[in-house]
């Protein structure tokens, strides 16, 4: 549905995107992650025609989106990072006017507004001015404007920033439902657990290029490491296969099953485990994988700098 090929964007002489290649298939959720300033929002702006790129191609449903942005605009649902709603209009007016912009009017528009409002828990707020909504409700309205016309490509740029727990859950549920109905979803976030909950494909945008791409589970398995730390009252005891530093004992090598490693260590320690005061276990997670991916790049750069 969405294909981005070799997209390069310079701000002055500073490259923000350096030949980004990316694809999102129909019904797929792609989580685009990266640090602030990595270029996620710039990439979305280019896909939607809000910014020009210096090189590269973007096709949406087989149409050249850079050459014909208006032809593909109706296929796109965009929820920008910054909240974008009309505060002086009611929720219903916000939805109705954007439905008309997307070419839906009259009874179909009213029916769709009812559906979307119910999906996002805004039915009771339809008659309220948007500036009377809570932060979470505003965020849900913001998302509703993007999905109102059943877009084939949904671009959500940090859609849950400022949303409360219930709003966040509601937004994730909508994303799941849209993808199940065949919408291709590009989802940027700093909350990596959301991508785990969505079981999304992951693409890491780092220093203007996609460094890793894969299914969430694969990325975690491939990159994330579990860790265990045993904490003692006083000096940690010596144990084969573990490293004692001060009052802490950690495995010398990476562990895949931190629970089993902890149990084995406790057996091996025997009576010496009596001084144990705490156990910290970190399970492999997308966050750990992300830190490992971006950390490796930093260390590679540092090595190169040292070699130079």
């Amino acid at each position, binding site marked *: 549905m969405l294909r981005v090929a070799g997209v390069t964007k310079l701000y002055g002489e500073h490259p923000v995107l350096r030949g980004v290649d990316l694809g999102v298939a129909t019904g797929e959720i792609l989580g685009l992650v990266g640090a602030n300033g990595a270029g996620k929002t710039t990439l979305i702006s280019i896909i*939607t025609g809000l910014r020009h790129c210096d090189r590269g191609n973007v096709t949406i449903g087989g149409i050249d989106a850079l050459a014909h942005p208006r032809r593909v605009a109706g296929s*796109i649902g965009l929820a920008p990072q*910054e909240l*974008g*709603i*009309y*505060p*002086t209009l009611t929720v219903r007016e916000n939805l109705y006017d954007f439905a008309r*912009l997307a*070419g839906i009017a009259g009874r179909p528009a009213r029916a769709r507004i009812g559906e979307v409002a119910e999906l996002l828990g805004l039915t009771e707020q339809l008659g309220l001015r948007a500036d009377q909504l809570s932060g979470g409700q505003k965020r849900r309205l913001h998302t509703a404007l993007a999905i109102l016309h059943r877009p084939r490509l949904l671009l959500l740029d940090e859609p849950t920033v400022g949303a409360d727990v219930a709003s966040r859950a509601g937004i994730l549920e909508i994303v799941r439902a849209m993808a199940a109905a065949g919408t291709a979803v590009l989802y940027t976030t700093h909350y990596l657990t959301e991508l785990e909950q969505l079981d999304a494909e992951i693409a890491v945008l780092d220093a203007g290029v996609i460094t890793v791409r894969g299914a969430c589970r694969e990325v975690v398995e491939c990159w994330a490491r579990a860790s265990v730390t045993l904490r003692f009252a006083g000096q940690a005891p010596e144990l084969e296969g573990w490293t004692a530093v001060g009052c802490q004992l950690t495995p010398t090598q990476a562990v895949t099953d931190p629970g089993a490693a902890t149990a084995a260590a406790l057996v091996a320690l025997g009576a010496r485990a009596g001084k144990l005061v705490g156990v910290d276990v970190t399970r492999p997670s997308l966050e750990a994988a992300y830190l490992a991916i971006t950390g490796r790049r930093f260390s590679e750069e540092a090595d190169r700098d040292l070699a130079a």
Partner: protein
Amino acid sequence: MISRRSLAVGRLSGRLLLSDPAPMIVTVAMPLILAPFLVPAARAQLQLAGYATAGGGDQVIPGLAVLFAFLSTQLVGTLFFREHAWGTWDRLRASPASTADIVLGKVAPLYVAQLLQLAVLLTTGWLLFGFRPDGSVAALVMVGAVFVAMVVAYAVMLVALCPTMDLALVLGNLGGMVMAGLGGALAPVSSLPRWAQAVAHLSPAYWALDAMRSITLDHAGLAGVAGSLGVLLLFAAGFAAVAAWRFRPSTVKIGTT
């Protein structure tokens, strides 16, 4: 040709104007409040200028209508700059509406609002303050329509040129006061200082008021105001050309909510 998308943007913009009607109400109410205080002095000025039977409303009502039409350029703040402050400008641009659809859809309600403001002022002036458009009504309608088009083009030019809403408001108000003052909105041009009389022709307000005065005091028809209409159209085209040249939809503007 007005597209369906332009109509959708126009409807949205109209709703936005109506959702915050205070600026429109003020620009209609203020001149009506000022008019009774200004009419007696204006009558004396017109009689000194040779119009023995003229009422003060013939000077005051068109003058205030022109002045407050220029001051109404603040409505562009609501229609353009606030879109940036509300984060909705990029949403509009990412919609199927083209830039031309968006601009047209924003300008059309502004035009209608300005035209209504002018109509209310002239009608109230006729009913209450002795404004007598004894010439051609069709000519008066044409003058109003072209003058408002020029004011809207001026307002859109300010949007195109100004990075912030505050700057657009300041320039809109200052520029409007200067143009209206030079054009004879506050006093007949013949009573202005010599230097002001010399440059009055450079103000579009002069040509609007000249046409209105021809209709009210000299009973002119369409032919009698054709020259003024032509000059007003040239001003409108000039402002619109600058707006089209300088308008960049991707430029981030700073508005206030």
